[in-house]
């Protein structure tokens, strides 16, 4: 469950404040997978970052008793000068895994990501697809209540997309996702409910179909 109380978030631009959320109060119930829709720049990613605890509202509070993954996005959360292996180790360490668990996690991520020798190369040599593979594979070794996924399911080749979706379906038996995607088939497949972010307001829809419809109306 996620609760937003009078949350306001804006960015200062040269033409004044641009509101992402304007005094939004709402509750996202437990045990549903949430799809986020909105135009580019509407604030989907910012909302995800706030839920992930690395960005903060200008006023109001967001509370949840649950644990969240880091926002898995295209840009990444990886240090470019470190190798894939070192980054995986780093993340395992900050989550307090033991040495034994770290070794096992490394094997699991390596196997899932299928990036071969690149696993021991600096991240800056990776393509964005490879980064997403690593990021997604890494998230699978933790037990979060919510996985925060920003567009990463639609990268990579067909083969990997299928593999990711399969892994995600297995994962969401035990956890929930907050998913940003512009791909309607993926949203329909994974999400139960939808949130549309538009001009500082949030529209909560009880079914993903309804959310897609709302989103299409905005775009007309």
């Amino acid at each position, binding site marked *: 469950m996620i609760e937003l109380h009078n949350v306001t978030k804006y960015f200062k631009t040269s033409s004044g404040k641009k509101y992402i959320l304007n005094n939004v109060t709402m509750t996202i119930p437990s045990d549903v997978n949430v799809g986020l829709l909105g135009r580019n720049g509407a604030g989907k990613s910012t909302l995800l970052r706030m839920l992930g605890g690395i960005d903060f509202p200008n006023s109001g509070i967001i509370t949840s008793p649950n644990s969240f993954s880091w926002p898995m996005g295209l840009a990444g959360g990886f240090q470019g*000068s470190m190798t894939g292996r070192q980054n995986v180790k780093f993340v395992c360490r*900050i989550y307090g895994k033991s040495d034994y668990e770290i070794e096992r996690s490394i094997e699991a991520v390596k196997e899932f990501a299928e990036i071969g020798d690149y696993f021991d190369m600096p991240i800056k040599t990776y393509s964005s697809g490879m980064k997403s593979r690593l990021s997604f594979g890494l998230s699978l070794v933790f037990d979060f*209540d919510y996985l925060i996924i920003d567009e990463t399911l639609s990268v990579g080749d067909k083969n990997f997309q299928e593999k990711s979706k399969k892994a995600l379906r297995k994962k969401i038996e035990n956890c929930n996702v907050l998913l940003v995607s512009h791909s309607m088939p993926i949203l329909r497949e994974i999400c139960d409910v939808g949130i549309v972010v538009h001009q500082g307001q949030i529209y909560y829809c009880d079914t993903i179909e309804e959310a897609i419809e709302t989103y299409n109306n905005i775009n007309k």
Partner: protein
Amino acid sequence: MNKRTSMEIFKSVVLALFLREVQTRFGTKKLGYFWAVFDAMFMVLIFAGLKSLISSKSMPGLDFHVFLATSFLAFFLWKNIVNQSMSAFSANKALFAYKQVKPFDTVVTRVLLELLVSSVATSIFVLIGLYLGLDISVENFNMVMLAVIWLVVFGFAIGLMTAVFSYFYEFYAKVMKIVMIFLFWTSALMFTVDSLPPLAREIVLYNPLVHFIEMIHGYYFHALSTYYVDYEYMLYWTLIPLWIGLFFYQRSEKRILSS
């Protein structure tokens, strides 16, 4: 997931950051350890050489090489702590994607790392001193250690303050670079305060680093005293920047994270 206390999280984050910094700083290609020793060694050789050119009489009762070595090891420890803290936020920006990692942790990590680097460099200096048969005996080891620890806290205070300010105002980082050059020449590294004419003595004592260096020298060498060390002045220079640094850090932590 199991809940951890913030202290447990802090410890595991600092450990993870520390291991990461060690890997990137001292990777096989970068000769990190070499530079750590070379910096101070180079200065010792240059100033010992200059001194022997200018005048033949050296400081009575102590080896000038050892004097320079203590000066530059201490000065570079402090300077590197400040410089490394200053760039800590931007160097670890990508890792702020994990909510456990706070900018403060990156500064603490870099202070610890510089402490390690300096310890390695000091050990190598001691070995060289023993090999060459120099007189490296310490008058009061405990007080020297106290001075070094205090110097590290002073470095952390200035470092944190500088890190926060320079993150928002690039100008501040440039000023710090100039200040460092100024400090290099005025921190009683290659002279003692006692050897200066009275007016210069008075001016130089406004530099807080002078007191730290004089404290180290005074307790290290039998031939030198800590007469000019003003502990109260050192305390002010530690506590006030520490307070300013922490105050502005906690006010701007969220801005640093989300920028």
